[in-house]
C-alpha cells in the first residue's frame, strides 16, 4: 500500500512553512499564560503580605514578645466570634438573595415578555451600579427603621427560635438588617451572571423538553438548570465573596457587639470587614496586626467555601453542556 518514500516533510515543505500569524499564536497563548501567572503572583503577594503582617497577632509570644494580643487573651477568642458574625451575615444574604436572583434571572430569560425583559435586565444591573456607601446610607436611614416592627413581630411570634430570641432592636441596626442590605447588594451580581447563562441554554434542548410535553417550569428544570448548574454556583460564589468582603454597608448599618445567634438584637455580632474598617484608622502596632490577621481568616473562609463549591461543580463535570 505504501509507495511514497519519505515520511518526513521535505525541506521547505508547505506544512512547515509558517503561514502568517504563527507568531501571533505564540504571543497570544503566552500572554494568556502570563495573565494567569500575574494573578497567582498578586495573590501570592497578598497572602505573604497578610501573613507577615498578621504574624505578631497569630503568635504573639514568638513574633512580638507579648503574652497575648491586645483585645483578647488569645487570637482565637478574638477572631472566632467575628468569623461567626461574618458567616452568619453572609448566609442570611445568600439565603435571601439566591432564590430571588435566580428567579429574576429566569424571569428575564424565560418568563418576561421580550419587551419587558431587556429593560428589567438593565434595571437590575442598576442595582449593581449603586455604590456600597449609598446602600449603607440607605440601610442606615431607611431600611433599619422600617425593620423595627418586623423584628418585634418575629420576636413575639417566633421568639422560640434562637435567631429571633433576645430583645428586639429599637433602631433596627442588627445583623439581620445587614444581611438584608447585603442581599440587595449581591442580588444583581447573581442575577446578571445567571441570566447570561440561562439565555445560553441551547434552544435545541429546550425544544426537546417542550416537545416531550414539558410545562415551562419542567423544561427549565430539565434543561436550563442542569445546563447552568456550574454557572449558578459560580455566580453565587461571586455574590458570597462580595457579601463576605463587604465593608462599608455593614459598617454603616450594624451596631456591632459580641457574637450571638440572635439576629434581631442590636449591639450583637460583627463582621470581619467592618471590624477592620471601624478600627483600622485608630489601630496601631499589635491591634493593627490583629485586624490584618482577621482579614487573613476571612481569606481562609473564602478559600474553604470555594473549595466546597468547586468540588460540587466538578462532581458532575461529564454531564455538563457545551459539547
Amino acid at each position: 500500500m505504501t509507495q511514497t518514500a519519505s515520511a518526513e516533510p521535505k525541506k521547505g515543505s508547505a506544512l512547515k512553512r509558517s503561514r502568517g500569524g504563527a507568531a501571533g499564536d505564540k504571543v497570544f497563548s503566552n500572554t494568556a499564560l502570563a495573565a494567569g501567572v500575574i494573578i497567582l503572583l498578586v495573590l501570592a503577594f497578598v497572602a505573604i503580605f497578610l501573613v507577615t503582617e498578621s504574624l505578631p497577632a497569630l503568635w504573639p509570644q514568638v513574633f512580638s514578645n507579648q503574652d497575648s494580643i491586645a483585645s483578647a487573651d488569645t487570637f482565637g477568642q478574638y477572631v472566632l466570634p467575628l468569623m461567626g458574625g461574618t458567616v452568619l451575615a453572609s448566609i442570611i444574604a445568600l439565603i435571601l438573595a439566591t432564590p430571588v436572583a435566580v428567579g429574576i434571572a429566569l424571569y428575564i430569560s424565560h418568563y418576561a415578555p421580550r419587551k419587558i425583559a431587556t429593560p428589567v435586565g438593565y434595571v437590575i444591573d442598576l442595582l449593581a451600579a449603586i455604590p456600597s456607601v449609598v446602600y449603607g446610607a440607605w440601610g442606615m436611614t431607611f431600611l433599619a427603621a422600617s425593620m423595627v416592627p418586623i423584628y418585634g413581630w418575629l420576636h413575639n411570634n417566633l421568639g422560640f427560635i434562637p435567631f429571633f430570641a433576645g430583645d428586639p432592636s429599637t433602631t433596627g441596626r442588627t445583623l439581620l438588617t445587614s444581611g438584608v442590605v447585603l442581599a440587595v447588594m449581591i442580588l444583581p451580581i447573581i442575577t446578571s451572571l445567571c441570566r447570561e447563562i440561562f439565555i445560553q441554554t441551547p434552544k435545541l434542548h429546550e425544544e426537546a423538553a417542550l416537545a416531550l410535553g414539558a410545562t415551562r417550569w419542567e423544561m427549565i428544570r430539565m434543561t436550563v438548570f442542569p445546563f447552568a448548574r456550574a454557572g449558578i454556583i459560580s455566580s453565587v460564589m461571586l455574590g458570597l465573596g462580595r457579601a463576605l468582603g463587604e465593608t462599608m454597608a455593614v459598617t454603616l448599618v450594624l451596631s456591632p457587639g459580641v457574637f450571638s445567634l440572635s439576629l434581631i438584637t442590636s449591639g450583637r455580632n460583627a463582621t470581619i470587614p467592618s471590624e477592620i474598617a471601624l478600627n483600622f484608622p485608630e489601630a496601631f502596632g499589635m491591634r493593627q496586626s490583629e485586624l490584618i490577621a482577621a482579614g487573613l481568616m476571612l481569606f481562609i473562609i473564602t478559600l474553604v467555601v470555594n473549595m466546597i463549591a468547586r468540588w460540587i461543580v466538578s462532581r458532575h463535570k461529564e454531564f455538563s453542556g457545551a459539547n
Partner: protein
Amino acid sequence: MSKRIDARNLNVYYSKFLAVEDVNINIEPRSVTAFIGPSGCGKTTFLRTINRMHEVIPGAYAEGELLLDGDNIYAPGVDPVNVRAMVGMVFQRPNPFPTMSIRDNILAGHRLNGARMSRSEADDIVERSLRGSNLWNEVKDRLDRPGSGLSGGQQQRLCIARTIAVSPDVILMDEPCSALDPISTLAIEDLINDLKEEYTVVIVTHNMQQAARVADKTAFFNIAGTGKPGKLIEYDDTSTIFSNPANEETQNYISGRFG
C-alpha cells in the same frame, strides 16, 4: 390511540414574515404522511405548528385552525403542553439532553408526569424504546453514560427512542433519518411501519425513496421564490404523487434526479 389532523386555512408567520400560506390538509389517523419539497419551503415550519412548537420561537405565530380529532389546538385556552404531550416530535438535529444519562433521556418524558414506576418497569420502557429505535445493542452497556457521548446517528436514534417512550398519539419526525446510516434508517422505517398501527405519523424527508417506501400519503410543498411563502401544492396517495402527480410543479420536482 391515534388522532386525525386537519389544518384549515393555516398561515404560519415568523413575526411579519409569512413562511407558510393557507394550508388545508386532512391527515388520517393510523397512517404515515410524508412532507416533501425543496429546502426552505416550510416543511419544518408547518410540522412544528402541528404540536405548537412553532410559537416557541420569539415572534412566531400561526393563524387559522388546526384540529386534532376535531379539537382546534389553536383555540383560546388550549394549553400547548397538553398538545405536545399528545403530539410527539423528533427534530432534524439530534438533541439529547446533555446533562442526562442515556437511560434518563429515555425516561425524561415519563418522569414529567411524576409517574412513579418500579425499577423494572423503567428498565422495560428503556429497553423497548431503544430496541424500537435500533440502538439497544450499541448502548445497553452504557446506559448510565451521558447521551452526548454518542455519534450523530446514535444521538438521533436516542431522540427517537425518547419520543416513542411516552407513546404519544401523533408522532412528528423532521428528517429523522438524515443523520443515519442505512442500517439504522431501515430500522427506523420498519419502526414507522409498526408505529402506524397505533399512531398517526407525519414525517418530513428529503429522500423521496424513503417517502415512497414508508408513506401512505405524500404532501408536496413548494415555494415560488425567496421571501415568498411556502405553499402546499399537492397532497395525495403516495403512489399517485410519484407516478401520476396532478400538478406540474410536483411533476418537475419528482422527476428531477434525486437521491
